[in-house]
């Protein structure tokens, strides 16, 4: 028996399997618990912003409301449309959730506390996060519903366009850190990269919002237009999984923003993991805040924003970062902070004037 175990689980250096097991459990618990907490947090925060109370019946301050919701979802009937593709319909939530969980494999909760310190960590995230789109498209296609299909098409279109500026803005960070590993990127942030890469942060955040379909880019499930988009025909726990995937992605984006731009777990006084959670919560709060504030863009405006606004700025940002690193290797990073912030303000204003967004008003 022991021999069989030895054969099956070769004794890799660094207590590999124990590490693997522990972190898989941690990631599952972290994602599920945090998503539940965030759902509660979003509903309460939105309620405060919208002059209402929000859930306050189940548990203290309605804290157990997500638990009640999940129990309700688990007991609901699972409906598959009569002319839908039964297998694809069943598989779609799985395909959507799995990559979302896999993202957290390389997110460092604190120094060294991550499932795998891949030396291509951020590249891995970029690659794996796009797979969720396949799940969403499967959901839209298999439902055999026109609203679902429209929603899924919108999702694919937005992810395809927004992937490019997002990746380009990540490269700026990678240039500064000199590594693709999430751990190393945090280590390199003596100054949070949000100060060194303000434009990169802005582009990444906007692009990420569009990729995870949060307002104002929540076109794929625009409830006032296409009912519920790709998950119109879903019910019960399959819907719950799609919902989990969506909120898990919002959580993942918060975690990635924290790691790339907000110096991850680093911070004074508080324990590192708490710093990490606080920062993630802060980013998520901003996402919720945006959701309650602005209207939704139209699909062509979404595309125009990606190609005319984000992409050129991302290229320019990359260029400037590269020149700065090449030209001033000796200059203190603190000098680059005001320079980069000034560059960001000028560029954003010019571009919005050029493409008539903010300053030039209306019409992208």
């Amino acid at each position, binding site marked *: 028996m022991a021999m069989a175990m030895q054969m099956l689980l070769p004794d890799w250096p660094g207590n590999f399997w124990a590490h693997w097991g522990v972190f898989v459990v941690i990631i599952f618990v972290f994602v599920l618990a945090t998503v539940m907490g965030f759902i509660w947090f979003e509903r309460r925060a939105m309620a405060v*912003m919208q002059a209402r109370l929000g859930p306050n019946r189940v548990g203290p301050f309605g804290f157990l409301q997500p638990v009640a919701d999940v129990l309700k979802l688990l007991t609901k009937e699972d409906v598959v449309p009569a002319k839908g593709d039964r297998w694809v319909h069943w598989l779609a939530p799985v395909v959507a959730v799995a990559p979302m969980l896999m993202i957290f494999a390389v997110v460092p909760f604190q120094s060294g506390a991550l499932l795998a310190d891949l030396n291509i960590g951020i590249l891995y995230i970029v690659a794996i996060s796009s797979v969720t789109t396949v799940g969403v498209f499967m959901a839209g296609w298999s439902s055999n519903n*026109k609203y679902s299909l429209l929603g899924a098409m919108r999702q694919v279109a937005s992810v395809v366009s927004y992937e490019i500026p997002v990746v380009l803005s990540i490269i700026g960070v990678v240039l500064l850190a000199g590594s693709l590993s999430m751990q190393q990127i945090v280590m390199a942030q003596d100054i949070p990269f949000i100060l060194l890469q303000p434009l990169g942060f802005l582009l990444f955040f906007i692009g990420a919002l569009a990729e995870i379909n949060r307002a104002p880019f929540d076109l794929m499930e625009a*409830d*006032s*237009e296409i009912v519920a988009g790709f998950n119109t025909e879903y019910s019960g726990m399959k819907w719950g999984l799609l919902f989990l995937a969506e909120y898990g992605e919002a959580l993942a984006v918060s975690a990635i923003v924290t790691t790339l731009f907000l110096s991850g777990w680093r911070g004074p006084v508080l324990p590192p993991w708490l710093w990490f959670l606080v920062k993630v919560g802060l980013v998520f709060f901003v996402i919720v805040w945006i959701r309650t504030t602005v209207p939704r863009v*139209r699909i062509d405006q979404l595309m125009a924003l990606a190609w005319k606004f984000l992409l050129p700025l991302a290229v320019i940002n990359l260029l400037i970062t590269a020149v700065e690193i090449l030209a001033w290797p000796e200059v203190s990073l603190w000098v680059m902070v005001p320079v980069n912030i000034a560059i960001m303000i000028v560029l954003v204003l010019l571009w919005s004037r050029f493409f008539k967004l903010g300053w030039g008003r209306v*019409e992208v």
Partner: protein
Amino acid sequence: MVGKSKAMETTKEVVIKAEPFVVNIGPAHPSTHGVFRMRTTLDGEVIVDMEPVFGYLHRGIEKLAEERTYTGVIPLTDRLDYLASMSNNLAYCLAVEKLAGILVPERAEYIRVIMAELQRIASHLIAVGAFLNDCGAFMTPILYMLREREKILDLFEMACGQRLTYNYMRVGGVSQDIPEEFAPALGKFLKEMPGWIDEYDQLLKDNEILLARAKGVGILPRELAVNISASGPVLRASGVKWDIRKADPYSIYDRFEFDIPTGTAGDCYDRYRVRIEEMRQSLRILEQAMKDLPKGEVRSDVPHLIRPPAGEAYGHIEAPRGDLGFYLVSDNSIAPYRFHVRAPTLINLTALRDMMRGWKVADLVIIFGSIDICLAEVDR
């Protein structure tokens, strides 16, 4: 030979078969404001054609009214445009008073104007809130606006005990006088409301996304608006200065000073702005009416069963959604011989198809929302 065929293959034009498909938007859809159905032909996201289907909420109110006494019809009018019941009551009572030649006491006229203008604000709050919600501003604007609508509903409850279907106006006056606490409450509301309207403006008036979404979208040209006999904010947003309160003054509207806000482009944004400005004008009227409110009777001596002389009458008012008219024919009996409603929303809807064609699905929702219909009035 092989090379040639390969070249031919690569130059062959790839034709992807794409054909328009039909989507039924409604009758059960989050933003059809009731049970309206749009049989929409889409080419991808672009609207090729749209065919409105209504009648899902038809209750035969016009026929029902012919079976009831003149006073008994008033509750039915509540159920026409349930977001503006007071205005419906007023229009109907005006028509009966015209038919039977009944005079209304001074105080009742003022109370009627106060109620009608409060109702206009309440209705526009819903209209603007729902429009912004359709634009995707998730719930925030509409909840802020419902907060103030609630205050108006409290005032109505004070006056007549109801919050949605008021049944407050009577032929020859109103059902009961306003209570003592009404005037201070209204005064407080008038003091606070301008600030709230400014707050709505701060929320979204200059928001880039809203401008991009609503400006230039769903244009209703001036000529078309006049030709389809559109009315209300929809007409005024197209630049036509036409308001029944000024054009054909009823009740005591000729005593008040107010402006008619108009738009220029006739797009969704103008319709939204016109409604916001109209709320401000309504507040002006309310202030004047509160100041001049005389003492006295609120109801003239009218028998319970009215027998107007044989003939016909048409009474119309500027309801929140447009020119609301009631056409009555009397055969000298206790019930109207013929009862017809000129529903402004139904007539405003006739331009819907022209406004929508060529725009995208996302625009369909906001164009439809900017017309501000109430299905109970469209279908009757």
